[in-house]
């Protein structure tokens, strides 16, 4: 049985699909209440790492534990009562309403024989409110815009009452206002309810603004781990993304702010002038 502690510990974790290692000797500890962003180029292993953390994939080598208990020993249902995942995208071939989708977040709590309880309905109503989509609850999921769908998926994960929330690029494909809304919900969850957050992030500037700790991955290994200021340096980004950038300061929050430099312009001359 899991306690309320949900610290995630990965020791020497390696994983491969059919061809070649995707993750290599990952050592990562995430304590209760942390808010961690995973960054790195496409294919560096961010999504795989999240899937390992929630136990739907098992490591080839190494050990992953949740609250001190090895994930291998925890039944899926137990894990799902503590860990929720917001995937990048899913589609539903049938016309489910938003309320019906969010209620599915209660799956790990619902008994096959007696069905859902009053508490399940209360928790999914609460999740709709937290995600700010009460007004959408009777709409069909498939009729919604990408930004609205992402909030529904987030609400479904919140209905799971997670102590650890894993998000896979929650803001990709969203417009600026939806990006901010989603991240603000996640942040307030972290700050007010102490939910541990691990999110794969594409947008380095958003990652810098919203996360306390960033983990930079390159080809399946962790190359930097620390505060945004420590991780988001010109040299580390040059090394990992093979892109020339200038790191400045966010004008308001003074978080690191990354400006991409175009490749065509000879970089040295440009900087010199």
């Amino acid at each position, binding site marked *: 049985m899991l306690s309320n502690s949900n610290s995630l510990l990965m020791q020497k974790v390696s994983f491969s699909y059919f061809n070649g290692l995707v993750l290599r000797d990952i050592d990562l500890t995430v304590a209760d209440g942390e808010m961690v962003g995973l960054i790195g180029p496409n294919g560096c292993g961010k999504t795989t790492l999240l899937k390992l953390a*929630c136990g739907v994939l098992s490591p080839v080598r190494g050990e992953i534990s949740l609250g001190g208990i090895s994930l291998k020993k925890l039944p899926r*249902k137990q894990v*799902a009562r503590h860990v*929720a995942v917001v995937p990048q995208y899913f589609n*539903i*071939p*049938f016309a*489910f309403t938003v309320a019906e989708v969010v209620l599915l977040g209660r*799956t790990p709590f619902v008994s096959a024989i007696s069905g859902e309880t009053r508490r399940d309905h209360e928790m999914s109503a609460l999740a709709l409110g937290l995600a700010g989509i009460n007004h959408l609850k009777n709409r069909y999921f498939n009729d919604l815009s990408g930004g609205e769908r992402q909030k529904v998926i987030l609400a479904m994960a919140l209905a799971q009452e997670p102590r650890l929330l894993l998000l896979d690029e929650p803001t990709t494909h969203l417009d600026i206002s939806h990006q901010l809304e989603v991240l603000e919900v996640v942040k307030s969850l972290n700050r007010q309810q102490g939910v541990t957050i691990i999110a794969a992030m594409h947008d380095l500037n958003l990652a810098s603004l919203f996360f306390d700790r960033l983990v930079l991955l390159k080809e399946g290994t962790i190359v930097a781990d620390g505060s945004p200021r420590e991780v988001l340096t010109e040299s580390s980004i040059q090394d990992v993304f093979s892109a020339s950038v200038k790191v400045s300061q966010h004008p308001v929050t003074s978080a690191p702010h990354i400006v991409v430099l175009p490749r065509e312009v000879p970089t040295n001359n440009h900087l010199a002038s």
Partner: protein
Amino acid sequence: MKRRNRAAVVLVSLALALIGGVLLACALGAVSIPPLDIIKMTLNKIHFSDFQATWQPASETIIFQIRLIRVVAAALVGAALATAGVLFQGLLRNPMADPYITGTSAGAALGATIAMMLPLGLAFSGLGVIPVAAFCGALVTILLVYNLARVGSKTPIVSMLLAGFVVSSMLSAIMSLLIMTDSELQLKLHSIFSFLAGSISVQYWSQIAVIAPLVIGGIIISLFFSFHLNAFSLGEEQAAYLGINVEREKLLILALGSLLTACAVSLSGLVGFVGLVMPHAVRLALGPDHRLLIPASALAGATFLVIADTLARTLIAPTELPVGIITALIGAPFFIYLLRRTRREYAF
């Protein structure tokens, strides 16, 4: 709660429709018997009441020894196929999935064909040799398909569909080969055709006694999977995130759907369209929530097949049509109507 009330109203209405359909089906035929008499003789039969018999004794024989067997069989077949259709469509997230995708149809057909080659008079304690052979053929096929589709500890849906298709094709070919080369079978082409087109051919209550518990039990067990089937609608990966043991439940649901289908083919041969259309019709009318969809589809499928079978044996009596022809003739236009009317899910 509102949702519960609505579900109760829907299910009670469908159950009443099924009872009405059964009465009507028993009443119609070469000799028509008033529905009220049927109710009275049934109540007498179960020692619930003691009405004066105002009907011919022969009527009672017609109802209990001929018509009711057939009507109950039709209801079981319809319920089993519609439920299997819901299970497969929900699990595979494919609205075009029907109960026969796991190869049960070809397996049952081959089993029945082989049974027809055997010397007559071989009966398994009143079950009939063809139904037993069809049932076994279907089960053997399912096992074969599952084992072919397994990759390590997983059964990917795509390999499941491919294995089902390949095994079906192979078994159909063997069946054709048998029919072409066996002179005995060529005399029975009409029976084979009736089986393939789907005809309810049940002679003994003992057949019902074996199949009914399987079908009813199968539907009840399906209900326990209904909430998880909703989660499966979001995809296997999401179902795993929600704490479902995906591989295990997928196998259980596939086995359950295949068993229901095998039960149906043993009573009726290959009745098409019920397993495809009924889940759609119910889903378009009531929404995709499997907690309501499964029982409602079972009842609607049962009613539909009872009515279709009644038409099959009365339309051009005394000649009987295969019920599969009726289900397709009614089912296809009904399906088109539903798709045109409700644009909730599809553009057509």
